[in-house]
Each structure stands twice: as structure tokens, then as C-alpha cells.
């Protein structure tokens, strides 16, 4: 008690409260005591369902996944194939199964019979793009599960999250996975963006896919923000106020945009409904559509960026099976990490939004991925700081493949190609500025 701060009452306080409620309903005579020693024979103050009693199972799950990961890791030593004098020699003991099926499925489209070894290494890809796909899947699945119980009204949003967290078996895990996968998605998406720029892979022929990727980053940020607002608690109140009021500062279309997003003159039921609809349907639809397109284009643009075969210093390749093994290994580790995070750290929840507003006395924080905008807003006009500069940063990233000089064939497929200097410096600058502003805001 209260429900947004479980466990904050001491045992004694809980007993006093129970006694008070009983007495108010004339069930406990005045003068009679109610105390902890009556717990054994009085069935009015039963212990609540043990909070988080699934934790043990969750830890066991992390354990089995880790063991599976060890197994997968040790399976991977003998699956290399080499290219000798232009013909593929099979170094495997078993067959490498290099045949393409007659009608490749989307899975086969994404997993060609073999891919170049140097560019399939973790230290080249960082696994960030693949992890982003995986986290998206986790978010979609756990999000569907949350939809069975979440109620998108100002009165019930908070308490339905409470029910998900404390009453439904594995509810805390589902919410935790949804939350942590969504945060991780932002992080791996930014790492993937940096990787793509710093390895020169953003240049044609992959320029269009780079732009699709930037679109995905924007969609992810909107999804994270709309999801954050669905808590509808005091923790999101001012970020929602600031975020929507920023729309009003946009010239000409600002007010119409505000009405479209908020559904009234101030945030309320209509706002929550609209954010819910965008979160579970509109934005998710965009995420899936653009995401599948982005994945499809990876192969269509020739797979991961490599120099042409005659320019490669290492011509070895890995098979489809090996690629899938590495992906499953990454997924096992990521799942274990997510379950661990969800078990140890509960996603935030605060008291529901009260009307009239409690006068602000505490510090107010934007969600972490928008702290940089909060910091910017302290330093100038709302439109330029809150809308202009973020859009400007996006435009700079969009322009990278247009202002950078072409990356020659022999510089492809490795870190920091010389021809990509300009874009590398700009991208690192943008990310450093983002980090610096975030840290500054955390120190406020």
C-alpha cells in the first residue's frame, strides 16, 4: 500500500489499517485489539499472493538459456568453409547444405546459403541489427499479452498495470520484458546506426535502406514515448504536457496537430485513447511494415557490405547453418539478459494522475531517451530547441550518404574506411552531443 508503492507499509501499519477498516464497518468491537499474533486464527489479514513468486522459475529459465548458449557456442567451431581457387571447398565434417531450395522462403531470402566470414563476425556487425529485430519481436509478443489486461482509461490504466504486475502469474515478467526490450531497442538501434555509418555501409547501393533504418529509429522513439504515456501516472504527466505543447509551437499547422494528437484542449481520456491506438496499432503497423522492408532490402542490396571477391583478403565464408547458429546464440543470450533485467528491476509506476494537479515540487524528468530535448529546452525558444534542433539532427543523418564521397570497393566491409571520414565525424558528433546533453540533464 498504496498500490503504486507496494510493500511500503510495515506489517504493524497493515494490521492497524485492517483493524480500522473492520471497525469502520462495525465488524470489530471498540476496545478489541487486532494484532499480528491473531494471524493464525483470524482470516481477515491473509498474506497477499506472494509478490514475484515466479522469480525462482525466471532465474531457472535464465540458467537453462545460459546452458543452451554455452552449447550453441561450442557447436560453432567446425562450420567454416573456404573458397580455394574460386571453388568452394567444404571444411565441414558433415554437409554444409549449400543448396538453395527451389522456391526460397523469406527465411531463405534473409539467410543465403553462405555469407563472407569477415563481415559475419560479431566485432564487425556488433549483432546490433539482428538484436533490434529480436527485441522488436519480444516487444510485439509481450505487448499482445499486455493487451489482454491493460485498460486504456485514466481511471483504470494505473490499476490495470498494477493487476498485470502483481496479480497475474508472470505478469511482472511480461511487463518487465516489454519495458526492457523497448529500452534496449533504442540502444541497439543507435548502435546499429553508428555501425552502419562507421563501416561505410550507408552509401549506395545501401543508401535507401539506410534511410528506411532512420525511419525505423523515429518510429521506435515514437513507440517508446507513446508506451511510456500509457502508464498515465504522475511520472508521465509533465513529459506529456511538454511533448504535446511543443506541437503548438510549430507554425501554421501546430494547433491542428495538437488537436489531432491530444483530442481536446488539454490531455485527457481522448489523449490516452489516441496514444493507445497509435501505440498498439498505427505505429506498430509502421514498425512491422518498414521493418520487414528494411530486412528485405538487406539481401536485395547484396547482403552485408563487402569488397568484391577478388579484393578480399579473407575469402572464407560461413554457411547458413552457422549463421542461424550465431543468431540463435545471440537470441538466447539476449533473452537471458532481458529476463534477468525484468526479474531484478521493475519498470516504473507512480500514483495515477490526480486532478487538480499536485503542485510540482519535485524535479521533473523526461523519459531517458528524450532527456536531451529537455536539456535543450532549458536554453532557448521552445520551437527551435524542442522541434527545430531534433528535426535538424535527423536531417543531418539523412544527408550523410549524400554529402559523403563514394566509398571505393576496396574500402568496403571494414571499420572506418578512409573515404567515409566526413560521415564518421558527423555521426560520432551527433551521438556524442546526444549523450552529452543526456548526461547534463541527468545532472540538473
Amino acid at each position, binding site marked *: 500500500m498504496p498500490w503504486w508503492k507496494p510493500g511500503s507499509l510495515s506489517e504493524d501499519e497493515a494490521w492497524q489499517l485492517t483493524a480500522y477498516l473492520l471497525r469502520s464497518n462495525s465488524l470489530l468491537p471498540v476496545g478489541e485489539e487486532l494484532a499480528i499474533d491473531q494471524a493464525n486464527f483470524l482470516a481477515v489479514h491473509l498474506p497477499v499472493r506472494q509478490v514475484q513468486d515466479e522469480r525462482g522459475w525466471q532465474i531457472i529459465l535464465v540458467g537453462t538459456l545460459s546452458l543452451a548458449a554455452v552449447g550453441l557456442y561450442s557447436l560453432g567451431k567446425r562450420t567454416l568453409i573456404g573458397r580455394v581457387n574460386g571453388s568452394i571447398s567444404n571444411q565441414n565434417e558433415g554437409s554444409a547444405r549449400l543448396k538453395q531450395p527451389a522456391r526460397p522462403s523469406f527465411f531463405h531470402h534473409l539467410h543465403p546459403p553462405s555469407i563472407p566470414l569477415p563481415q559475419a563476425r560479431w566485432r564487425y556487425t556488433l549483432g546490433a541489427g539482428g538484436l533490434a529485430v529480436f527485441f522488436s519481436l519480444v516487444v510485439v509478443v509481450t505487448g499482445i499479452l499486455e493487451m489482454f489486461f491493460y485498460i486504456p482509461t485514466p481511471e483504470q490504466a494505473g490499476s490495470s498495470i498494477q493487476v498485470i504486475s502483481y496479480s497475474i502469474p508472470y505478469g511482472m515478467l511480461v511487463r518487465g520484458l516489454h519495458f526492457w526490450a523497448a529500452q534496449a531497442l533504442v540502444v541497439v538501434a543507435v548502435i546499429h546506426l553508428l555501425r552502419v555509418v562507421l563501416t561505410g555501409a550507408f552509401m549506395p547501393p545501401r543508401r535507401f535502406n539506410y534511410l528506411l533504418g532512420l525511419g525505423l529509429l523515429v518510429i521506435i522513439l515514437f513507440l517508446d514515448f507513446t508506451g511510456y504515456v500509457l502508464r498515465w501516472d504522475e511520472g508521465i504527466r509533465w513529459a506529456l504536457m511538454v511533448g504535446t505543447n511543443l506541437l503548438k509551437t510549430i507554425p501554421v499547422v501546430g494547433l491542428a496537430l495538437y488537436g489531432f494528437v491530444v483530442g481536446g484542449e488539454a490531455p485527457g481520456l481522448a489523449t490516452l485513447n489516441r496514444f493507445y491506438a497509435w501505440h498498439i496499432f498505427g505505429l506498430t503497423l509502421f514498425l512491422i511494415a518498414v521493418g520487414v522492408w528494411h530486412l528485405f532490402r538487406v539481401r536485395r542490396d547484396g547482403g552485408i557490405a563487402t569488397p568484391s571477391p577478388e579484393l578480399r583478403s579473407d575469402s572464407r565464408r560461413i554457411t547458413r547453418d552457422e549463421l542461424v547458429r550465431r543468431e540463435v546464440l545471440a537470441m538466447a543470450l539476449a533473452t537471458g539478459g532481458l529476463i534477468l533485467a525484468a526479474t531484478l528491476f521493475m519498470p516504473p509506476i507512480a500514483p495515477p494522475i490526480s*486532478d487538480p494537479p499536485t503542485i*510540482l515540487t519535485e524535479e521533473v524528468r523526461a523519459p531517458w531517451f528524450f532527456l536531451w530535448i*529537455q536539456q535543450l529546452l532549458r536554453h532557448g525558444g521552445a520551437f527551435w530547441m524542442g522541434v527545430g534542433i531534433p528535426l535538424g539532427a535527423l536531417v543531418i543523418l539523412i544527408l550523410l550518404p549524400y554529402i559523403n564521397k563514394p566509398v571505393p570497393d576496396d574500402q568496403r566491409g571494414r571499420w572506418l574506411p578512409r573515404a567515409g571520414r566526413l560521415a564518421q565525424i558527423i555521426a560520432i558528433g551527433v551521438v556524442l552531443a546526444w549523450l552529452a546533453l543526456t548526461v547534463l540533464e541527468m545532472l540538473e
Partner: protein
Amino acid sequence: MTEDISRRSFLKLAVQGLVAISGLLALDGLRRYLSFKPAPPPPKRFEIGPESDYPPGTRLVLPEIPAVLIHDQDGYHALSLVCTHLGCVVERQVDVYACNCHGSRYDKSGKVTRGPAIHSLPVFQVERNQDGRLVILKG
């Protein structure tokens, strides 16, 4: 022959024009559909009780407006507590008002002493209705 082509191209042009007009009409319908505001506008008048509750010298925070009711030698007026920057409610500290969202500061009379806010806190008129109760008129 030429007559036939011009007839066809006329029909094509007409079809394109009609489709475009239909599209524009539909877009306008969509615009009107989306601009409907389901929630009623927030209230503009707040009755705050009898005058006697607010003797001279009063500086009282009324969170539901949110505003500070001031009763001084100039009579009654109310100072809005909504930051003019991006709408957070400002906190009253002794004799200044501070916004915890982006650090704007206002002095006792609502004038900006530190950005990013540009405009002063607005002053609301306070009226007396026929029963002698005070009414704050917002905006």
C-alpha cells in the same frame, strides 16, 4: 482519327480531374472528421467561495485552477501558475515562482526573471457574483 484521340484524351483528362476532385473532397472530410474534439474544453470560470475567506494580504495557491489568489490594496486578482514556456505548473517558493521542467523563474508579480520562458505569468480577473462569492475568469 485525330477526333478520336482528342476524345479519348479528353475523357482521360476528365477522369483524372474527377478522381483528383473526389480525393480533395475526401481529404477535406477527413480533415473535418479528425478535427472534432471529443473532450469538452476545460472550464474558464472558477467559483472559489465567499469573499470573507480571502482577507487583505491573502496570497493563496489554488491548485485546481492552478493560480495564486492575491488580495492586496488593488483588490483581488489571480496569477496563473502555468509556465508560459511549455505548460508545466510552476512551484511557489517564498516570493518567486519556479518551473521544475526547464528552469524558468518568475518574480512575485509573474515577470520572467530567468528563461527559457519569454512571457510573464498571465493575470486572471477576479469578479464578485451577486451572492458575494468570488469567481476567477481564466483567459
